[in-house]
Each structure stands twice: as C-alpha cells, then as structure tokens.
C-alpha cells in the first residue's frame, strides 16, 4: 500500500518536496555565494547565480584569509571550537546523566525543587549572565582561556542535559534499581552497568543538542577569549560586514559552510537517532 501512487500519495510527496525546497533556500543561497567572486556579488546582488565558479573561496576561507593579522583562514579557529565543544559536550552530558540519574532514581528530600531550579536554568537568557560570568571567570582566573568557555558551557549545559536525562530515566522501572541494590551494586555500579547502557538514545539527543548549541554560540566566545583563543563563530563575525568595509560575501559564505559542516554532519548522521532518542522518552 505504501508504494502505490494514489493521488493522495502524490500530494504527500509534493508537499514534502515543497517544504524541503523552502527549507533549503537559505542554504542554497549560501552555497551559491560560496562559489561567487566578491566582484560578482558586489556588482549584482547577494542572491543570484554565479557568473563563474570561484572555488578558491573555500581555500581562502580555510587557510589564507586574514582575520586580524593572522592570515591562516578559519582553520585555527575551527580547531579552537573543537577543543571547546568536545570536552564541554562530553562533560556536560555525563554530569547531566549523573544528575538525571540521581534525580530520577534516587529520590531525596527536595529533589523536585532541585530539579525545578535546574530546569529554570534552561530559560535564563545569556545576555543576563554575561556580567556574572565575567566575575566568576575572573575569580577563577579563567579569563581568556578555552577552559573558561568549557566551564561556562558545561555549567549552562547541565541544565539541558539534566532535564533530558532525568525525564528519560524516570521511565526506568524502580524494580530494576531494587534488584541491583539487593545484588549488592552501589550507586556507581548501578549507574555504570545498568543505567548508562540503557542511555544511548538520550545521550545521542543531548550530545547533538549540546554540540550544536555550543558550536554556534558566539556571545561568550567573543567576550571571554581573544585572538588566537577564539572559537570559529567569532572568526565568522570577523568576516562579516562592518561599517567601513566592503563585505567579502564569497569568502564569508565559504567560511560559513566550512564552519557549519560539523554540525550539519552531526544532524545528517545523528538525525535518525535524534528522533529515536526523543521517541524513547526524552519528551515525556
């Protein structure tokens, strides 16, 4: 039945394709611009077809475009972003799993309050936290370090990861925990041997979520690091338009594509598990 092309199914595919086109338009514009020369774009419009293919934009964006005095393109900043994203994602996910585990399965007095407060953290606008973070990083001596950014993203990320994991873990039957306690397993052994092996669906959700959010964040990146320490989003902004500058849309678009590649790949390969993980209970 799924394969017969009834008018209804034609309509379904038409709708899906129509929406897909709508979703793809902005990406298409960036892709087209990434192979256009600055002169081409400047002389015509930022939305248009390339007159000639300028693949050199990618090369320049990656390795030779000058940002500040460094003419190394965005590659060193990509590396900074990885140095920031990977530890921050892993640590915040693990701590969130641990928090979620204790909140969901080891109920204690006031656990609902703790959970409520942590959830509130999801809603705090980051503009509001800029000054407090400045003071905290100063007192910890982490100003202008990638470690400082990792700290920020871990602490803020815990709110999200705890929320996701806790909701997922409440679906784990209490009896499993009781059985393990009688078997003599302690807090960590239960986490490590029983809860964690059950967690891949939700861990994939949190990892995808954290990875993309941390990767794309720029306010903290710009404020708390400088020069060679900055993440790639800061470098992208550096390429973007300023009051007295002619925009370099071609190179900028190429840089945008390169910088977006990791997150796009994460969604491309993780998307299936993302939905599956959400199905497995993250949304209850």
């Amino acid at each position, binding site marked *: 039945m799924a394969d017969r092309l009834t008018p209804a*199914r034609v309509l*379904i*595919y038409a*709708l*899906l394709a129509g*929406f*897909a086109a*709508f*979703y*793809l*338009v*902005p*990406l298409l*514009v*960036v892709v087209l611009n990434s192979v256009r020369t600055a002169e081409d774009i400047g002389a015509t*419009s*930022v*939305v248009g077809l390339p007159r000639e293919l300028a693949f050199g934009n990618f090369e320049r964006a990656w390795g030779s475009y000058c940002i500040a005095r460094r003419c190394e393109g965005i590659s060193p900043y990509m590396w900074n972003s990885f140095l920031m994203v990977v530890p921050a994602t892993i640590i915040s996910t693990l701590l969130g799993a*641990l*928090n979620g585990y*204790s909140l969901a399965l080891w109920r204690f007095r006031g656990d*609902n309050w*703790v959970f*409520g*407060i*942590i959830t*509130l953290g*999801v*809603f*705090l*606008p980051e*503009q*509001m936290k*800029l*000054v*407090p973070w400045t003071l905290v990083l100063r007192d910890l001596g982490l100003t202008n370090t990638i470690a400082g950014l990792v700290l920020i993203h871990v*602490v803020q990320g*815990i*709110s999200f990861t*705890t929320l996701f994991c806790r909701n997922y873990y409440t679906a784990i039957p209490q009896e499993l925990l009781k059985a393990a306690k009688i078997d*003599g397993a302690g807090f*960590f052994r239960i986490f490590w041997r029983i809860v964690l092996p059950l967690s891949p669906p939700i861990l994939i959700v949190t990892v995808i979520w954290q990875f*993309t959010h941390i*990767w*794309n964040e*720029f306010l903290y990146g710009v404020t708390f690091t400088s020069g060679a320490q900055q993440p790639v*989003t800061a470098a*992208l902004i550096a390429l*973007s338009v300023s009051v007295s500058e002619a925009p370099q849309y071609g190179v900028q678009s190429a840089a945008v594509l390169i910088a*977006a590649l990791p997150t*796009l790949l*994460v*969604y*491309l390969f993780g*998307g*299936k598990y993302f*939905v599956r993980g*959400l*199905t497995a209970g993250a*949304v209850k």
Partner: protein
Amino acid sequence: MTPDPGPATAPAAPALDAPRAAARRAAARPAWRDAIGRWLPHLVLWPPLLVSVVHVLGFTGYTTWMSFTASTLMPDYEWVGLRNYTAVLNSRNWQIATDNLLIYGAGFVVLTTALGLLLAVLIDQRVRGENLFRTIYLYPMAVSFVVTGTVWAWLLNPSIGIQRLVRSMGWGGFRFDWLVDREMAIYTIVIAGAWQASGFAMALFLAGIRSVDADLYKAAQVDGAGPWRIYRRVVLPAIWPIFIAVLVILLQYTIKTFDLVRALTGGGPGIATQLPALVVYDLMFQRGLLGRGSAAAVMMLLSLLLVLVPYFGFMRWRRHREARHG
C-alpha cells in the same frame, strides 16, 4: 513454555555453598570501605547539582540585586529602589518590545507547532527518503542564526530577494516587502523563526506519533475511521504531552529570541521589531546601563514564570494523578 520440561526431572537440590561463603567474606570487609561507599555518591553527586543550582539562583539573584542599583558601565552597589523599573516600563522601546513579544510569541508558537505537526504527519506516511526529508527539515537547527538570519534578511529584502526573483520571472506586480514594512516586519521574524524551529517540533511530534500504541491505530481502523479522523481523534489526543513539551520549548525560545532579530532586522525598521531580549542587551551593553538592563531582564524572567508556574503545577498534577492510578 512448552519446550521446557517440568522441573520434576531436575536433579536433586545442589549444594550452593561456595557463593554463600564468598558472600560472608564480602560482608566482613572493613568498615572504612563501607563508609566510603556511602559517602562517595554524595561527593560526586552534589557538586554538579549544587553548581547548577547556584548558577541559576546566584545569577538570577545577582541580576535582581543589580536591578535595584545605580549600576551603569560597571556594577555599582548604590541602592536606587524601583527607579530602573519605572524607567524601563516608561520607555517606548520596552513597550514596543512587550507588544511584539505577544504578537511574535503567538505567531511563532502557532506557526511552528502547525508546521512541525504537518511535517511529522507527512513523514509518518511511510514515505521513501524519510531520512533525507527529516535531515532537511532539521538542518536549520544546526546552523547559527547569526548566519542564517543574514541570509533571510537578503531573501526577505524586496530589492534583492524573493520579490525581485518573482518579479524577474514576469510577475511585475508581485509584492513581498514585509521586512521593510513597520507593521509586517515582526511577521518576517515569525517566518524565519518557524523555519528554524519547526524541524525540532517535527522531531518531537514524530517521536510522539511513533510511540503511540499500534493497537490504537488498529482499533480505530476497525472502527472505520479514515486517516484524517485517526490523527484527529486518536493520535493527537494520545500525544498531548508532546504538545505541552513543544509549547514549553517554543516559549522559552520565544522569550530568549535575540540572534534572530539582531541578524534579520536589527530591531527595525526603526524600532518596530524590538523584543525584550534585545532591549536587555541594548540597555546593558550598548547604552551601558547595567542596572536598567537588569531590571528589564528581571521582568523578562517574571514573564517566564507566568509560563513556568502553570507548567510545573501541571506536571505536579500529572504526577499525582499517575501515582493515584499506579
């Protein structure tokens, strides 16, 4: 269990002494190990919980305090009472921002939910290339709005984007100039916001639809319900918790909306598309009025409580109900 022969044929009870002896040995291990065993979980567990709680309460408390001080470029702890609040409430920017928040919030939540649901239902029709479609709908989440907002600004701009494209295809009278229209610009933010977030809503709805008990579909089919009726009367009511989840996620997104507007309209034309998060940032950092910006931030958070308190109340009610039935 037919292949299992009855236990009557099992051999006589074996002596199971070995593990028992081992258990006794284990029980006799030193007390300090037990003490560590009891305390270690607390040592590991509490720091992250405490850090999160302190981060939320501390930062919120700090901002609240600042909102009552004369802070300008730098934190300054001179108490000024409610002066910052009255100043913010009386400013045109804030009034426009709060009005916009209502328009944008309602439009964005409704459009995103509807789009997400429609896409989820379409994808649920056992289509070929599901992976591809799903990835396409989800990818806007993956890209920073600092980037995509700029591209949307081009596309929505009448002189370079869609309007120009359609006109160049021969429809000379085509008009799509919401971006530069004071009255309509806020809706372009709704469109771009829905473009970015509807994929996530789709993922949530798809997850919900997929987790509906297959027997429910069968029962509805047996009852003679068509596909439309099955969704409307059986599936959607069954996934109402997903609606709540989507709603909460979109509302927090609404209130925090910042990059989107900054990249798309910069708050303009004029100040027609101001939103509270922009006003907070503008006051705190552009105008160097930390105290006044903090007051705006506190009011933003209070508006958030209007959403969160009913939500937590609802969750509590649901837990109680489940406890009663369980």
